[in-house]
């Protein structure tokens, strides 16, 4: 075999290996592409059955209740179409708030309650000083009242 052919073969083999590697990476990647499911998808049964998964959405306003033991909380996750009740025992992240984004990992119990073992706060891409946020909130309320 001429050196040139050998080189060509080497490149072809390297490319084939790379392609194979990329396929594996993408395959592994696919299972994580859907980081969370929305409440609507939960009700439509589009979630993995009998195994842990994540749900994401907003924490429904006025839904946060603390149980008597002090560490177990219940709240509802909403995508403004469906609500899923969630139960979680543990410390909530700093940014966890009603009306804000949340991603919870866990599984559905037979009563239709999502029992979470991890709760993550999902914040948005807006950055502003507190005074500006208050002004926006005031403006929003005025607009809502006038409608």
């Amino acid at each position, binding site marked *: 075999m001429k050196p040139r052919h050998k*080189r060509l073969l080497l*490149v072809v083999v*390297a*490319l084939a290996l*790379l*392609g194979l590697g*990329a396929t594996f*990476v993408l395959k592994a*990647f696919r299972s*994580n*592409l*859907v*980081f*969370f*499911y*929305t409440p609507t998808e939960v009700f439509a049964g589009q979630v993995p059955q009998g195994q842990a998964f994540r749900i*994401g959405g907003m924490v429904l306003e006025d839904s946060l209740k603390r149980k008597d033991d002090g560490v177990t909380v219940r709240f509802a996750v909403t995508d403004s179409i469906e609500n899923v009740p969630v139960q979680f025992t543990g410390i*909530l*992240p*700093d*940014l*966890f708030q009603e009306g*804000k984004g949340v*991603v919870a990992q866990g599984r559905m119990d037979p009563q239709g309650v999502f029992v979470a073992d*991890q*709760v*993550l*706060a*999902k*914040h*948005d*891409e*807006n*950055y*502003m*000083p*507190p*005074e*500006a*946020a*208050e002004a926006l909130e005031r403006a929003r309320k005025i607009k809502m009242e006038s409608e």
Partner: protein
Amino acid sequence: MAVFFFLLASILTVWGLYVGFFVAPTDFQQGESYRIIFIHVPAAWMSMLIYLIMSFWAAIGLIMNTRLSSMMAHALAPTGALMTFIALWTGAFWGRPTWGAWWVWDARLTSELILLFLYIGYMALRASIEDPRRADRASAILALVGIVNVPIIYFSVQWWNTLHQGASVSLTKSPSMATSMLTGMLVMALAFWMYSIAVSLIRVRRIIRDREANAAWLSDSSGVQ
């Protein structure tokens, strides 16, 4: 010339950090933890940009068979890897207090981690091939294959459900940040840019020198026999 870029980088860093820590106000949701943004976002931008420029030079080297462009690609890789590492590290230190987790396997974080592996793979491949011209060609192919990852990183927050929030600054909409916060971030991005240019210039000079010394030594030793 590198000195000039270092100087620019230093001035911009002082300015950027001053704006970031003393002018920019507290954030309404994240409090002071958001100040990590002034290095996180510039590092993440640079990690992607350097990969694009590195692949560009690698491709030119492969197609036109020019040594200098391959050496440029070679010189950019370590800085790109460093920027990726900084983006991942600061991201973890930002994710912990805000999301409640150091790391999650969402599409944005996973693809940025793959970028770090691509940089490391590129450098390892180069190091494993003794003949620099062959190393140029093999690593160029790796760089070009890996380029598909860059748009995946950038658009992951739009294409899929991720924990990572969307872009605050993009070409398609006005920035969703208070002006002084945005100023601090953009100045720091410029500082990172200047730093990367300075470091790559010095490194490419070293690479040129080493390669020429090596080539001269090779021709010398063959001349003796």
